[in-house]
């Protein structure tokens, strides 16, 4: 497998490439080679990690910050990374910790400023200039029924409890194995299974409820 940084153009599965042992060796080579390889690592993984952070944090600004912090932690921790797990699994695990820190930090400041709670929430939603995750929905000219089901599922995912949402994202969206997701999130494999089933059930129930409310005459549909 070719693992040298690509110049753009064709991409197979970048995650598979960065998980190859040769890639780790290039990252650890030192000097410009390391910098170049790290730059490529960021280019091919950035949006997927950002999408994961977006699942848990409402603000894109915060998501970007935790992703940046994660890359710094990767850079710092690389010499001690022994390659026992996949590089990307380890990166997910670092990101998960950054997200937890960020949520905890928000909780703390929320407790400190209970009276300005609502003002803070409105600021958080205003920070995002990018569309929310629920805007996965298709443009108006796409097939409407399908689009509306996609939208409902997407909304349902956004409404999941954080733990279930993270598991769902890693397992069903990113396709990590149960063991990999367990390692990344610091859970047992059994717990991952339970959370994943819970997530899917909650999604189905959310969608069903939404579909039911669509067909009640006189009730506004969306």
């Amino acid at each position, binding site marked *: 497998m070719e693992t040298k940084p690509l110049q753009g153009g064709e991409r197979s599965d970048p995650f598979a490439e960065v998980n190859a042992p040769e890639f780790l060796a290039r990252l650890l080579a030192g000097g410009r080679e390391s910098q170049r390889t790290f730059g490529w690592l960021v280019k091919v993984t950035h949006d997927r990690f950002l999408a994961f952070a977006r699942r848990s944090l409402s603000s894109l600004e915060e998501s970007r910050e935790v992703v940046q912090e994660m890359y710094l932690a990767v850079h710092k921790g690389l010499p001690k990374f022994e390659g026992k797990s996949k590089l990307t699994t380890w990166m997910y695990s670092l990101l998960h910790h950054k997200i937890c820190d960020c949520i905890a930090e928000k909780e703390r400041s929320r407790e400190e400023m209970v009276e300005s709670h609502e003002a803070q929430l409105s600021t958080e939603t205003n920070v995002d200039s990018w569309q929310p995750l629920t805007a996965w929905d298709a443009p108006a000219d796409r097939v409407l029924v399908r689009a509306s089901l*996609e939208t409902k599922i997407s909304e349902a995912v956004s409404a999941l409890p954080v733990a279930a949402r993270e598991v769902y994202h890693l397992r069903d*969206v990113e396709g990590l194995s149960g063991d990999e997701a367990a390692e990344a999130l610091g859970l047992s494999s059994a717990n991952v299974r339970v959370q994943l089933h819970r997530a899917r059930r909650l999604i189905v129930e959310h969608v069903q409820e939404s579909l039911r409310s669509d067909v009640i005459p006189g009730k506004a549909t969306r």
Partner: protein
Amino acid sequence: MSLFYALYYPCDKVRDFAYDYLEGKLGLLTGFRFKRHLRGCEECQEYIKLYRMAADPSKFTFENPLPSEFLDHTLQFLKERGVVGDG
């Protein structure tokens, strides 16, 4: 749903089995009861259909591509800290 089928597996139990069903891990007897329930229960058919969709979002979702300035911002952030180079 007919009473006949309800006597075997209740809907809730069938839905609890959705995960194992998708993994192909239902035992022979459980699988038999599961499928028999499904044949007679439209609600559970619908449920399993949605469950299958939820379990495979790649088939129907397409995420908005992130604006490239987010990646650029991160690269700049890391460049300032000497993590990545100019290229």
